[in-house]
């Protein structure tokens, strides 16, 4: 078996679908979603099988034997600088690989149904495979630049998929926003690499993990990497692109903006955790930012009306939990939550997709209701996801989330503030998720008649992944042997479950009989004004600055200084020309005057023996 295969299968899928798409444009022959989707799904499944092969291989080995490295070729080599293009598989990257390929396969499968009526499914599936290819590069890359390749690559795929319906410029704009905000973070990544190279002399991850840096340098590198992660993983301050990214097809949101891409920040932090542990300050920053993000976005989620937006903010919030875990040094817990979150959040997104699909692109939860009878499978699986995210035992979220909450208090880097905020976020999570669940599935129907009649359960190809993910959400928690279980841990566990139930109960009773649109706080709904502020400040500020520069510097200074030069030459020409009056007698007079002046000047200088110039 070759490690390269994991990466190559999606790549081939991308190439095949891409070429098919281009060919179909030429010939006009339309490709069905089934055709292209099955190719793409098949590629993912093959990749998944390869990953399972390695999983089996790894489980038979000791902890320190779980490492496979494959050097493909020398990438950039210039003088002392050397970067190889090599893949490296260890337990961490295997876990991510399995999530990507496993959940990815399910979502690909789901997409076949979801994109049935789309015009260019081959394009869609090629992008999706491109994404998986890049994501696998991200988690398998052995060097920082290789990770960066995947890092930017997933950003690209995300851009393409968010703006997939590119006739609509607003959607393209959302993709652009995502790409640019990611790039802002990427600058941090780049500079972190420069600094790391300057002080470590290598960009190989192994070398970075081994390196001991001065606390200052380690802090700077850690902060910059974390800044990059806030871009990719939608944390404060760069989180505002994620809700907008919901413009893409729903399976895309499930795969990219819930299960995989947005968690790559956790992956990266975990990768360089030895470096971060050298800089405790950075860790506390990460924890603070994580928990704040978790809380703030949970608040915002409570005021959303769009089903996908709620899930998006929920994702941001859950990512905040993961960063909190990283920030308190519990990288394991963070990664565990990545996995469980991938299951239940993908499940919920796909469920939401199923709902949207059934209601013909209706996304407002106040125009839904009572769908439990129309969409039984969707409802059932969604409830499983709900239970998981609330952290009800024995669902997967219970294990991972409570691990984080426990660690936030009991870890070496934890403290009460983090703990209380985490608990508050859990409460809010329970509230808005229950709100969503009740309003969509159980409360009285607020749908229009026609929509209601057409609402139907999705086909098998879509429900199958739902069921699979629901099972995973249920059992996913047992895949990890928790080290918790001590006394305080248990009380916290109970506390968090109680908190979740309180939130859920509150929401349940509030929205059970809801039959009108809720008046939400506009300020909260618009993301606490953060997005508005960015739009105002950067969205308008940058073009304004650009206009200002072009007007004041480019036009007034640069262009005018060139004009001034020509004007000066022309002016001096016209002044000199004014001597040319046309009268020969004036000419002669001027010559005499100049001649006499020269004569006197020369004679004087000679007589005094003065030498004016030269020497």
């Amino acid at each position: 078996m070759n490690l390269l295969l994991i990466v190559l299968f999606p790549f081939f899928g991308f190439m095949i679908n891409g070429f098919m798409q281009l060919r179909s444009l030429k010939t006009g022959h339309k490709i069905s979603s089934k055709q292209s989707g099955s190719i793409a799904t098949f590629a993912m499944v093959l990749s998944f099988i390869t990953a399972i092969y390695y999983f089996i291989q790894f489980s038979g080995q000791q902890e320190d034997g779980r490492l496979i490295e494959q050097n493909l070729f020398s990438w950039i080599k210039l003088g002392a600088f050397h970067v190889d293009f090599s893949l490296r598989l260890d337990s961490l990257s295997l876990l991510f690989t399995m999530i990507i390929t496993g959940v990815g396969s399910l979502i690909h499968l789901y997409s076949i149904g979801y994109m049935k009526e789309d015009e260019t499914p081959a394009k869609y599936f090629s992008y999706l495979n491109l994404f998986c290819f890049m994501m696998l590069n991200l988690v398998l890359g052995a060097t920082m630049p290789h990770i960066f390749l995947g890092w930017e690559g997933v950003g690209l795929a995300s851009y393409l998929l968010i703006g997939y319906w590119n006739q609509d410029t607003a959607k393209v704009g959302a993709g652009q926003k995502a790409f640019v905000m990611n790039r802002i973070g990427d600058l941090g990544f780049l500079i972190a690499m420069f600094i790391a190279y300057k002080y470590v002399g290598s960009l190989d991850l192994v070398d970075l993990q081994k390196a001991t840096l001065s606390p200052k340098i380690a802090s700077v590198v850690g902060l910059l990497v974390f800044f990059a992660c806030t871009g990719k993983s939608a944390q404060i301050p760069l989180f505002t692109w994620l809700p907008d990214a919901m413009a893409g097809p729903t399976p895309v949101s499930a795969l990219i903006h819930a299960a995989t891409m947005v968690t790559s920040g956790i992956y990266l932090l975990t990768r360089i955790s030895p470096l971060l542990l050298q800089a405790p300050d950075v860790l506390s920053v990460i924890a603070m930012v994580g928990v704040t993000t978790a809380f703030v976005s949970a608040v915002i989620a409570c005021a959303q009306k769009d089903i996908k937006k709620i899930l998006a903010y929920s994702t941001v919030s859950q990512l905040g939990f993961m960063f909190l875990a990283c920030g308190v040094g519990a990288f394991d817990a963070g990664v565990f939550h990545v996995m469980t979150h991938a299951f239940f959040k993908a499940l919920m997104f796909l469920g939401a997709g199923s709902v949207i699909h059934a209601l013909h692109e209706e996304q407002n939860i106040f125009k839904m209701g009572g769908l439990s009878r129309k969409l039984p499978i969707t409802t059932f699986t969604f409830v499983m996801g709900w239970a998981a995210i609330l952290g009800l035992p024995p669902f997967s979220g219970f294990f991972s989330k409570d691990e984080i909450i426990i660690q936030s208090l009991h870890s070496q880097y934890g403290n009460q503030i983090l703990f209380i905020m985490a608990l508050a976020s859990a409460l809010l999570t329970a509230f808005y998720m229950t709100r969503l669940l009740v309003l969509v599935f159980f409360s009285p129907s607020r749908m229009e008649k026609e929509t209601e009649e057409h609402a139907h359960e999705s086909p098998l190809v879509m429900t199958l992944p739902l069921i699979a993910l629901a099972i995973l959400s249920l059992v996913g928690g047992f895949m990890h042997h928790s080290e918790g279980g001590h006394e305080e841990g248990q009380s916290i566990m109970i506390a968090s479950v109680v908190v979740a139930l309180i939130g859920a109960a509150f929401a349940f009773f509030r929205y059970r009989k809801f039959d009108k649109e809720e008046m939400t706080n506009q300020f909260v709904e618009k993301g606490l004004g953060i997005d508005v502020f960015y739009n105002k400040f950067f969205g308008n500020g940058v073009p304004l600055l650009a206009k200002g520069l072009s007007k004041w510097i480019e036009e007034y200074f640069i262009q005018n200084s060139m004009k001034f030069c020509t004007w000066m030459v022309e002016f001096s020409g016209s002044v000199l020309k004014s001597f040319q009056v046309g009268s020969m007698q004036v000419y002669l007079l001027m010559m005499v005057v100049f001649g006499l002046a020269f004569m006197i000047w020369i004679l004087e200088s000679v007589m005094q023996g003065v030498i004016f110039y030269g020497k």
Partner: protein
Amino acid sequence: MNEPWMMLIVACTVFLIGLMGVIFRKNLLIVLMSVELMLNAVNLSFVTFSKLHNSLEGHISVLFVMTVAAAESAVGLGLVIALFRTLKTADSDQIQILRD
């Protein structure tokens, strides 16, 4: 020895008178005459220096200058006549078509 320098001053004065004439007189014929005056002033200076150096060169020069001056005035008069025919004027202020 004072005498030659006095003559030189006379020559220069005459030369300047000629130059002034060329610059300030408006009638072209007088301008032409002023040019002749300048040349004759130079003759004076040549003769003076010739005497100073006891050489014949200066004297011979005078003859040449006179000849050249004659030729020059012939050409000059011709040009003035030609101009008079086309412009109907001999006023130097009138001939300023070519300028800038």
